[in-house]
């Protein structure tokens, strides 16, 4: 048993889904040609003035309301000073004292049970540009399209004690952002980024150990691996009587390790001060009332509703509500065919597997929820076998075809007609007199053999339930 306790705090940067940038009217569109969405404000030309985007304030406040933050009626912007070519002004406009939201919390559940993680603050800020470095011609190429794209930074309390809790917290935050429709939550494209502050201390010690800040964690798996590696590394250092250095460390996804990015001596000194170009932001109560009334049903509430309204297992309720798309897909399918558990099973197995493989989302599926409902209904009504349904699912997902038509075209309609099946059963019994005699002599296990023969004879189209029933009668 380890004698150390891990302490983790997380910083999430979420890119907001606004059309224009936070302080100018340039487009935020991803994938434009380099420097196409740039103006004098976001390229840091002298003499320009930033003007705050109203939507950014709304989105930041809504996130605060969703996680029970105190919303500061007055908040101010500050300059965070550092030099880097993709930060053309020489400072990032952010919030330092008086951020827009403070003191919220998120409830998570892990194997160890439920836990409440505190959120210290949420503040608004601008993103930096992007640079590409070329060793070949000894130059860096700067693209300012992303400069001034709006972000909120969500800072947690150092409340998490292992990587599993950290991942659960991140998933909860991401899910809420997506439900609020204020961030697309895409980790690979960088619209949902996370840094982890990790330290260890002997059990029982109150003071925190020296922390390292882990960066480059662009998937939940990386978060887990990077924290696990870092904890081991720090414990080894402490055990060997060495010091943990306060520093930024980059996660290397290929090696599964972290390495130092910059030491303490180079540690940044940002010299924050209030930004004189932006006037204080004072929120009116009427705006807050409006935003509060616009909050959608959030993941936790929806999960509870899925449990009570549809009688789903807690596992299914959690999985189906963690993505807003998936929850809406499920409810649309259930509206078309009211067998929630059956539909949940299809979504939780085959369809989730497909989405995991393609990296797609439920909202992008060509198979509409109504068509999935039709497929499930056909199985439940015995029109096709469950096996046939699974067999045609890949094609339905690929083409978005109507399941009823596809079943007809492929001749998969199940034989449930008792008189047709009775003839097949008689034929099979007549062809296998020895087995029939053995069965009658007490070898009842041969029931399975007969069912197999009948399925073969009908090319798998016989309804197994009807076959079983008819066969049992005949063998009496």
């Amino acid at each position, binding site marked *: 048993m380890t004698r150390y306790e891990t302490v983790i705090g997380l910083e999430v940067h979420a890119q907001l889904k606004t059309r224009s940038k936070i302080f100018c009217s340039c487009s935020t569109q991803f994938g434009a040609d380099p420097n196409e969405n740039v103006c004098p404000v976001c390229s840091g030309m002298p003499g320009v003035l930033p003007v705050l985007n*109203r939507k950014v304030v709304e989105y930041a406040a809504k996130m605060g309301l969703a996680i029970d933050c105190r919303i500061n009626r007055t908040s101010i912007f500050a300059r965070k000073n550092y030099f880097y070519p993709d930060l053309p002004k020489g400072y990032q406009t952010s919030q330092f004292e008086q951020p827009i939201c403070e003191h919220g919390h998120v409830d998570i559940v892990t194997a160890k049970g439920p836990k409440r993680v505190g959120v210290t603050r949420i503040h608004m800020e601008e993103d930096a540009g992007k640079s590409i470095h070329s060793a070949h011609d000894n130059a860096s190429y700067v693209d300012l399209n992303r400069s001034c794209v709006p972000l909120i930074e969500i800072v947690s309390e150092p409340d998490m004690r292992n990587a599993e809790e950290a991942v659960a917290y991140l998933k909860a935050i991401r899910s809420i952002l997506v439900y609020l429709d204020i961030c697309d939550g895409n980790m690979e494209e960088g619209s949902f980024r996370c840094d982890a502050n990790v330290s260890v201390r002997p059990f029982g010690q109150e003071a925190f150990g020296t922390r390292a800040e882990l960066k480059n964690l662009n998937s939940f798996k990386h978060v887990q691996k990077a924290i696990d590696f870092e904890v081991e590394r720090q414990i080894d250092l402490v055990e060997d009587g060495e010091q943990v250095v306060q520093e930024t460390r980059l996660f290397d996804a290929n090696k599964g390790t972290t390495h130092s990015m910059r030491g303490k001596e180079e540690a940044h000194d940002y010299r924050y001060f209030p930004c004189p170009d932006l006037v204080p932001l004072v929120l009116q109560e009427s705006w807050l009332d409006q935003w509060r009334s616009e909050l959608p049903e959030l993941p936790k509430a929806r999960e509870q509703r899925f449990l009570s309204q549809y009688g789903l297992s807690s596992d299914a309720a959690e999985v189906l509500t963690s993505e807003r798309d998936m929850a809406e897909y499920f409810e649309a399918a259930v509206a078309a065919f009211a067998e929630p558990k059956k539909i949940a099973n299809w979504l939780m197995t085959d369809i989730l597997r497909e989405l995991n493989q393609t990296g797609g989302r439920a909202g992008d599926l060509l198979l509409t929820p109504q068509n999935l409902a039709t497929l499930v209904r056909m199985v439940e009504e015995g029109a096709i076998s469950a096996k046939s349904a699974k067999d045609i699912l890949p094609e339905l997902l690929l083409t978005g075809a109507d399941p009823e038509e596809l079943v007809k075209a492929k001749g998969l309609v199940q034989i449930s007609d008792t008189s047709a099946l009775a003839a097949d059963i008689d034929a099979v019994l007549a062809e296998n007199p020895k087995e029939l005699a053995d069965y009658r002599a007490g070898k009842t296990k041969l029931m399975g053999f007969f069912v197999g023969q009948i399925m073969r004879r009908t090319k798998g189209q016989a309804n197994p339930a009807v076959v079983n029933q008819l066969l049992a009668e005949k063998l009496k």
Partner: protein
Amino acid sequence: MKISPEEVAKVARLARLDLTPEKIDQYAGQLDGILGYMDKLSELDTSSVEPMYTPVDQISVMRDDVVRKDFTREEILRNAPETDGAFFIVPRIV
């Protein structure tokens, strides 16, 4: 001394200013005078006064989330130290 030459050297380094030792001493003296004057102001009791972040009366100046494109890339890159027509090009930093 309100500010030491070492602190002045540090602030200069953070601002990417390359100062000679003579300049560091000179600025330390000048900044010390300014900070001394601030201390004089601090003698007033301001505990009941809200900090002022701006002398401007306006609050909450905002714009709607509407996209506008007022400048071509060519115009923006005209201010680049060096460009290939698509990027700002600067000495390599990594």
